[in-house]
C-alpha cells in the first residue's frame, strides 16, 4: 500500500532579511502511512507549518519530490493543483472561518463551489454535519459569536464536506483551554474512526497529542526524526531528542505516559 504522503530528499530554505539563508528542511525524506495519525512536532520556526504548506502546494520545494497517494505532485500547477487539493481537508490554527459568512454558509461553501449539488441537497448535508459536530441551532450565527472550541468544530465540519482522504491539522488546539483541547482531540479520534482518513497533526500540544499518534516525527534544525510510537521518543539517545523530551514533556510525560 502506498503511503498517503511521501517526502523524498526535500530541501526548503528561506533567505532572511539580512541575506542569510535559513534551511528549514535539509534533504528530508519521510513517509506518512495511509489511514493512520502522524504527529509532526518541533520547536517554533523548525518548519512544521512549512511542511504542511509544501504538502498543499502553497509553497514550492527547492529540491526533492513530494508524492501524494503515489502521485508526484512536486511543482504541480493549475487544474492538477486543484485536483490535488480536493484530496485534502485542512483545519487551520485559527480555524480560518469566513467572518462575513454564517456557520451554515461557511460549511456549505465547499459544496457550493466544488460540487453540482442543488441547494436542497446542500442544506440537508450541512445540517446533518452540524448535528454530527454538535452544532445544532448555531447555523445562523457568525464565527465571532462562537467560542474557540465551536469555531474549531465548524472548521472541522467544513473541512469534512468533500470527504477528504487526508486531513491536515495545523496547531488545532491553539488558544483553547486544556479541557477544550482534550475534547477536540477526542472529536478528531471519533471523526477519524468514522471516516478513516489519514491524519497529519502539526502541534506542540505535547504530550496530550501523542496519545492520538500512531507515528511521531520531530523536526529539528532542518532534519526530521521519525518514531513509531511516543514511547520510542523517550528512549532515544540523540541529544536533541533528549532535550526535546526534557523541555516539552517534562514531568507530565513521565507521570502520564510512562506509567501507563
Amino acid at each position, binding site marked *: 500500500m502506498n503511503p498517503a504522503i511521501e517526502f523524498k530528499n526535500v530541501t526548503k530554505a528561506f533567505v532572511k532579511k539580512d541575506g542569510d539563508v535559513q534551511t528549514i528542511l535539509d534533504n528530508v525524506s519521510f513517509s506518512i502511512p495511509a489511514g493512520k495519525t502522524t504527529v509532526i512536532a518541533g520547536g517554533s520556526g523548525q518548519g512544521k507549518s512549512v511542511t504542511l504548506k509544501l504538502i*498543499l502546494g502553497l509553497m514550492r520545494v527547492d529540491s526533492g519530490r513530494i508524492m501524494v497517494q503515489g502521485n508526484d505532485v512536486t511543482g504541480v500547477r493549475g487544474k492538477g493543483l486543484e485536483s490535488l*487539493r480536493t484530496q485534502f481537508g485542512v483545519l487551520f490554527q485559527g480555524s*480560518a472561518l*469566513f467572518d462575513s459568512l454564517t456557520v451554515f454558509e461557511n460549511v456549505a*461553501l*465547499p459544496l457550493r*463551489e*466544488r460540487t453540482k449539488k442543488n441547494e436542497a441537497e446542500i442544506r440537508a448535508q450541512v445540517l446533518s454535519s452540524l448535528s454530527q459536530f454538535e452544532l445544532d441551532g448555531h447555523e445562523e450565527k457568525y464565527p465571532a459569536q462562537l467560542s474557540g472550541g465551536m469555531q474549531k468544530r465548524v472548521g472541522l465540519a467544513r473541512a469534512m464536506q468533500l470527504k477528504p482522504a487526508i486531513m491536515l491539522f495545523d496547531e488545532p488546539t491553539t488558544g483553547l483551554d486544556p479541557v477544550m483541547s482534550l475534547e477536540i482531540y477526542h472529536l478528531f479520534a471519533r471523526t477519524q474512526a468514522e471516516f478513516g482518513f489519514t491524519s497529519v497533526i502539526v502541534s506542540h500540544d505535547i504530550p496530550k497529542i501523542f496519545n492520538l499518534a500512531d507515528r511521531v516525527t520531530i523536526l529539528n534544525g532542518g532534519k526530521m526524526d521519525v518514531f513509531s510510537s511516543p514511547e520510542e521518543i523517550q528512549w532515544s539517545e540523540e541529544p536533541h531528542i533528549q532535550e526535546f523530551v526534557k523541555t516539552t514533556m517534562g514531568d507530565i510525560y513521565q507521570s502520564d505516559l510512562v506509567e501507563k
Partner: protein
Amino acid sequence: MKSNLVGNLGNTGLYILTDLGKMTLFLLKALRGVFRRPFRFRELLRQMHFIGVGSLAVIFFTAASTGMVLGLQGYYSLNKFGADGMLGSAVSLTLIMELGPVLTALMVAGRAGSAMCAELGIMRISEQIDALDCMAVDPFRYLITPKFLATLICVPLLTVMFDVVGIAGGYIAGVSLMDVNPGSYVEGMRTSVTNHDIQLGVIKSFVFALLVVWICTGRGYFVQEIRGAGFGAESVSRVTTQAVVFSSISVLIFDYLLTAVFL
C-alpha cells in the same frame, strides 16, 4: 560602506521588480476570473452596492461643493475680462475632463479602496485566503474579480453623476448667486463640450477605476509580503494607508499622462 550601499540599492531594485511582477500577475489573474465559472453574480451586486450606492453621498457632496466653488472662482476670474458668459463652458469642461474623473477616483480610493484593502489583508493574515486555496476555490474568482468588475462599472457611473451634480452646483453659484445669464451658462456648456471631451472623461474614469481597485486589492492580498509593513493588525493598517496613498498618486500621474496623450 560603499558595497553596503550598492547591496541595499540592488536589494531594493530586486524587491521593486519582484513586486511589480507579482502585481502584474495579480492583475492578469483578476481579469481571468471574469471567464471562470461559477460566476458570482450576487457578490458582484453586493460589491456594486458597497462601492456605488455606498459612495453616492460622498460623491454628491464633493461634486456639489466643487461645482459651486468652480462657479464662484470662475465667475471671479472671467468677470475681470467681461467673459462671465463663458462660465458654463469653463465649469463643464473642467468637471468633465478633469475634476470629475480625478475626484471621483480619489473619493472611491479613500472610501471603498481602503475597505477592500483592509478586508483582504485581514482575510490573508487570518488564513481565510489560504483556506480558499486549500478548498481548491480560486480566490481570484471568488474574492477579487467581483471587486474589479464592480469598481470598473461603478466608478464611471459615479463620475457621470459627479459631472452632473458639479455642473448643477456651478449653475446655482453662477446663475442664482452671481446673476450670470442662465441661457449663456447652458449655451456655453452645450457649444463647448464635444464628444471627444466626454470620451476623455470616460476613458480616464475607467483607467482610474482600474488603478484604484488593482492597487488596493493587490496590497491587501500581498499584505504579508510587503517590506516594512510589520505583522498582524499593524501590517493591515500600514498597507491600507499605503494602498490609498499609492492609488491616489497613480491617479494623479495617469491624469497628466492621459491628458497629454488625448488632448
